């Protein structure tokens, strides 16, 4: 489900990711009234987003029926390379919890949770030295 190029090109992914990014930008720059900045930034984003791990936690209990079969899973806060201090919540996939490192470079992929919902998730960047 991750990294399929056709999925990356579809509109819904872009919409969600733009919202996600605007969310982070709005929160980071609310006082600077940066809606224009946010728009410019989101348009410049490509699916090859890279980021670093700020913090992570492995959820062992389900708090919603949808996630019962998914535990344990990693909730992560990543800082996007595009803008220092811009953080978003996501999932970390393709790595076991003991192997996750603070500051670890990660890249975005996409996972379709439902026909109308695709989310950006992150996995360790390959070929990048932490």
């Amino acid at each position, binding site marked *: 489900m991750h990294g399929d190029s056709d999925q990356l090109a579809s509109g819904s992914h872009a919409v969600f990711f733009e*919202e*996600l990014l605007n*969310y*982070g930008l709005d*929160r*980071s720059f*609310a006082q600077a009234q940066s809606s224009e900045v946010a728009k410019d930034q989101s348009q410049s984003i490509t699916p090859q987003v890279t980021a670093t791990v*700020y*913090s*992570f*936690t*492995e*959820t*062992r*209990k*389900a*708090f*919603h*029926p*949808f*996630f*019962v079969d*998914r535990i*344990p*899973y990693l*909730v992560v*806060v990543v800082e996007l390379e595009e803008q220092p*201090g811009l*953080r*978003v*919540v*996501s*999932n970390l996939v393709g790595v076991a*919890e003991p192997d996750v490192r*603070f500051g670890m470079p990660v890249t975005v992929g996409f996972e379709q*949770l439902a026909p109308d*919902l695709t*989310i950006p*998730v992150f996995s360790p960047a390959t070929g990048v030295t932490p």
Partner: protein
Amino acid sequence: MIGRKVAIVGVGYSSVGRHTGRSEAHHASQAALAALDDAGLTVADVDGVTTWGGDAIDFAHMLGITPVRWHLNAGTSPAFVTPAVHAAMAVATGHAEVCMAWRIMMQQPSSAALSAGGASLGAPNMGDTQFAYPFGDFSPTQWAGLLMNRYLHESDATEEDFAQFAVVQREYAHRNPDALQRDLLTAEQYLAAPYISKPLRLLDCDYPCDSGSAVIFTTEERARDLRQPAVLVEASALSAIHNMSFETLPDMVRTSPAHCAEVLWSRTDLRPADVDCAQLYDGFSVITFQWLEGLGLCDPGGAGPFVRAGGTRLTGAMPTNTDGGACNVGRRHGANFCIEATRQLRGQCGDRQVDGAEVAVWANAVGPFSGAMLLTKG
């Protein structure tokens, strides 16, 4: 503090317990009557009411507190400290003579109930939560896991220090008849308890229950004629540094408590070295660690080694959470820390009493928002 000098004159709890089957109003009534009895006051003396949980005006009407000259229903806020500070401010400014502050908190649904789909954590109106829920980020235990992991990364603390913290808290609870969990705990038992959101373990979490807590504030002058030794409000502070997204805090280690402590100390001539005991929110144990450091009660980044060295014990440098904390007395959402600080300054804590306690600090919450109050023996 600006205005009239304010005192805490009465404290009380409801019949706190797991799934009590009693309503918020029932807990509010029990706690209020206990606090009034503690103070030697009647409902006729009260003219101000504040609460988080339930409705202060309904509670007042139910109890016969009428007419009311000051009232507040606090929404999501840093636990009990918000209704407490607003009650104290009402007295300080003369908007009320005797103001009762409540925290009524009903037991929240378990992970089992949530995962079965029979309950949810609040109404999903999909504001900012739309950027967290799709990633399975629902529960405060998860932001606490994020904060604790980052704290372990940046500080000198280890998971064993958190085990030691839990052990010491339980030692206090063992000496507190009000505590719901009183059996002594070992570090091994802490470490064997399941992770909820790694590195956060079950015993890092406060203990879910139904609770009602009430504290009565009035003037120092009025307090002199009442039943208990007066406990005075030396200073208080509220803080907010971010929106309510804990996950996007710019710094997960130095959060609102660091700012709140600065504000608190700016409002008093007392210094951290003057504090005899600290009652610091432990909704998740990493919160207490942040407060110990934020308030200057130990070195920055040094709460782990401080706990390891016995610093939070009754015989330590800073007896901390001497009622056993919410991990053991149950989720009374910070009100227990106000009440324990008050009882310590009155000298009513039996074999967990801090000898000669004259200054106590109690503090609530973490992350985006927090609050604290410094109390002195009258």
